């Protein structure tokens, strides 16, 4: 019972958090100089033209009125219309979400499975050449600028070797039956092998580029957490009982060592669902990150507010999920 009350309490916190976040975002984007009208008119932004368009777009109302109007509509599920594209903010976010989710899920999946494996192995063989290689590799991974890595991957795999397509989500001219918007899943649902392979080939490079960065992070966290656990008394007891090291590591220690790793993985998923701007730009991936950056450049207020609220919501939900996984990993944790 207490468990459900905890979940409900956590979900209720969402409301003040969203209100707070929307006020902060609203203020911030209105404080920075420039407005959508100036961007729209660009070189033609004479004072008269600007004022006329500002009035036409309702941007001449006092700020608090604009906020209240937007907020009351948002409460009813209407996040407004994009100033730039004239489409409903929510529709636009949902369209981009599928593309972003593909990248986020794919890269975190690869990075987490490989990262935990490498991290555990590095800790298990601490101070050996394997450990040092793992550390060196993860240092490299976090230090490489991702746009450069992406560029080099394109150059190698697309231009030189010709194995993979340069950019985009799908070969042009390939028609698709969209069901979920996640192309790999759609391909399975529609049993279309050609579509599946094509989507996978387009996904490969951006996912690997992102995975490299997160892999490095996961390796480091897993390794240090594992080292800590391996120093615990119960590990020594298990070893003293005569259990094999591998059994101790994977059966006794791993679950406990994973708690900080799960936190980091959760935050990474949340971060990636907010969009990976550089990766999306290099690989022409139509995700949320690019939408946010374009919208900020354009001062597309409703769109920026919509995306930020969405990201805040993702963080809250994922934090909750992470907390629930804690309880599974460590039975002592109870809510």
């Amino acid at each position: 019972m207490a468990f459900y009350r905890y979940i409900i309490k956590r979900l209720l916190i969402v409301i003040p958090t969203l209100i707070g976040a929307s006020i902060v975002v609203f203020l911030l984007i209105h404080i920075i100089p420039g407005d959508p009208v100036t961007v729209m008119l660009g070189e033609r932004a004479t004072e008269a033209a600007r004022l006329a368009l500002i009035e036409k777009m309702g941007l001449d109302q006092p700020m608090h009125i604009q906020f209240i109007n937007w907020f009351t509509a948002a409460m009813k599920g209407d996040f407004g219309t994009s100033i730039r594209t004239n489409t409903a903010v929510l529709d636009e976010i949902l369209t981009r979400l599928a593309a972003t989710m593909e990248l986020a899920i794919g890269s975190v999946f690869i990075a987490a499975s490989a990262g935990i494996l490498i991290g555990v192995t590095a800790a298990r063989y601490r101070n050996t050449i394997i450990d040092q290689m793992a550390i060196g590799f993860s240092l490299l991974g976090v230090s490489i600028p991702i746009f450069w890595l992406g560029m080099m991957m394109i150059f190698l795999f697309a231009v030189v070797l010709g194995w993979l397509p340069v950019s985009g989500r799908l070969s042009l001219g390939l028609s698709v039956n969209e069901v979920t918007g996640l192309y790999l899943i759609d391909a399975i649902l529609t049993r279309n092998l050609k579509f599946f392979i094509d989507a996978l080939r387009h996904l490969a490079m951006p996912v690997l580029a992102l995975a490299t960065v997160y892999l490095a992070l996961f390796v480091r966290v897993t390794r240090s957490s594992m080292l800590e656990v391996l120093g615990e008394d119960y590990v020594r007891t298990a070893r003293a009982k005569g259990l094999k090291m591998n059994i101790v590591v994977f059966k006794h220690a791993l679950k406990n060592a994973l708690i900080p790793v799960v936190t980091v993985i959760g935050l990474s998923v949340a971060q990636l669902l907010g969009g990976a701007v550089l990766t999306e730009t290099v690989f022409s991936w139509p995700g949320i990150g690019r939408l946010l950056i374009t919208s900020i450049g354009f001062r597309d207020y409703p769109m920026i507010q919509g995306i930020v609220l969405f990201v805040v919501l993702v963080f809250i939900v994922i934090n909750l999920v992470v907390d629930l996984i804690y309880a599974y990993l460590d039975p002592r944790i109870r809510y």
Partner: protein
Amino acid sequence: MRGKSSLFLMVFISVLLAFSVFGCAQEEAVNGDPAGQEDDIFIVARGTDAVTLDTNWAYYEGEIDLMYHLYEGLVEYIDDDLNVGPSLATEWSNSEDGTVWTFKLREGVKFHDGTDFNADAVVFTYERILQEDHPYANMGDWSYLDYLLGDVIAEVKAIDDYTVEFTLNNVFSPFLTYMGLYSQFIISPTAVQEYGDEFYKNPVGTGPYMMEEWKSEELTSMVLFDDYWDEKPAIEKIIWKVVPDASTRMMELQTGEVHAIKTILPEQFEVLTADPDINIVRMAGANIFYGSINHDAEPLGDVRVRQALMHAIDFDKLVESVYEGLGTRAINPMPPTVFGFNDDIVPYAYDPERAKELLAEAGYPDGFDLDIHTLSTARVYIGRPIDAAEIVADYLRAVGINPTVVVNEAATHFALISSYDYQLAFEGWYDVAHPNNFMRALVLEGMTNNYKPQELWDLSDMANATNDMELQEQYYREMQEIIHNDASMMPVAHNDYTAAVAGNVVDFRLDPIGNVILLGTYFE
């Protein structure tokens, strides 16, 4: 120890396996891939997407290319000097007093939705934009049609099914040139009635191509229109792919995944030129990159100070290093490719000593503090705005001025300029290659620099009010002379519009406004 090495081996093998699968699959997929294989699909990669496909409300760089393929105007440009020939109108005439234009329309033309093209469609198109109480008014934010002709056109009237009469408030010399521009193209009234506010996603014109699919920020595709009235272009289907990163765009072309890329960077020029399988297309652009001088900001109100700035800078060197051969030095507010350009103007010579003398004469022997504002990112008229401002600052420092370069993101920059909150700011202009669009739209209306002498207004009015080309040229040349003598602005360069195409592409065209035109393009 063995357990772990086999683990690594497994990971290694699976990665290898994955790549060999990709490798094999790729052979198969490329054969089924349209790019580079089938002759009837043409793929162009561009950095930006369209925001609206409604031609009368379009004005972004990313949308204008598309308009020339989906829609048509009453007249069309037949050369790069923007001379016009028949399109949806077969002939036209101008009344004695010059204020009434009568167009005979082409019969038997259909819109993509099957609607007949006739005088009603023309009237509907113009009234939708120009009449505020029109049932389909205000379907966009800012209309170039309204901007160019809103105050010019008094009435558009259907005389019969295939005759339309435009009555102007006054004689307006750029009228016919403007009629060939995308914002004046004709839309299907039934489609506007059917789609309403969604028309911008469902464009219906009479052009040789009709809309197929628009995936925002990904691609726009269009296919040949079966009932097109004129000879059909060779290409069956055009895909406009959005590739925001310039380096990725180049690699898309190098791998043959696209047939053309729009806009190449100066640093890519050499690589692409060296590639035997790629051709570069260039067009002198109807644009200008200039320094806007605020005449109300001390001490720039003094003509001697402004002339000193001009003498202090070696513009040839500046343009050479920033544009790397893909631009020409500007000496007037309009490009030399535009009718009425004054080629008698001798630009201020690079002469730092003369600059120092002028500064001393003006009472600033020790120079003064000067903020130089510039853009943080490329625009169509400048690839590297920060470099340009830094070089200018170096030259000015050499004559004793104390400059500070301030780099602004676009929204901030234009807000600052339009509120006159600057001394010297670099910006630019790109427009139709008509003198009115530079000498009036830019110099007198667009530029916020507190320099608007009455004699320039008068000359501009006189040029617009006569259809006599010689007189127009004389007025425009005079305007340029006044601006030059006053050193009222700092013209820097005209940027070339560029594209790169695969070696087997023939007759890929860029127009002086920078649009990709594929109407005559085919594969060898």
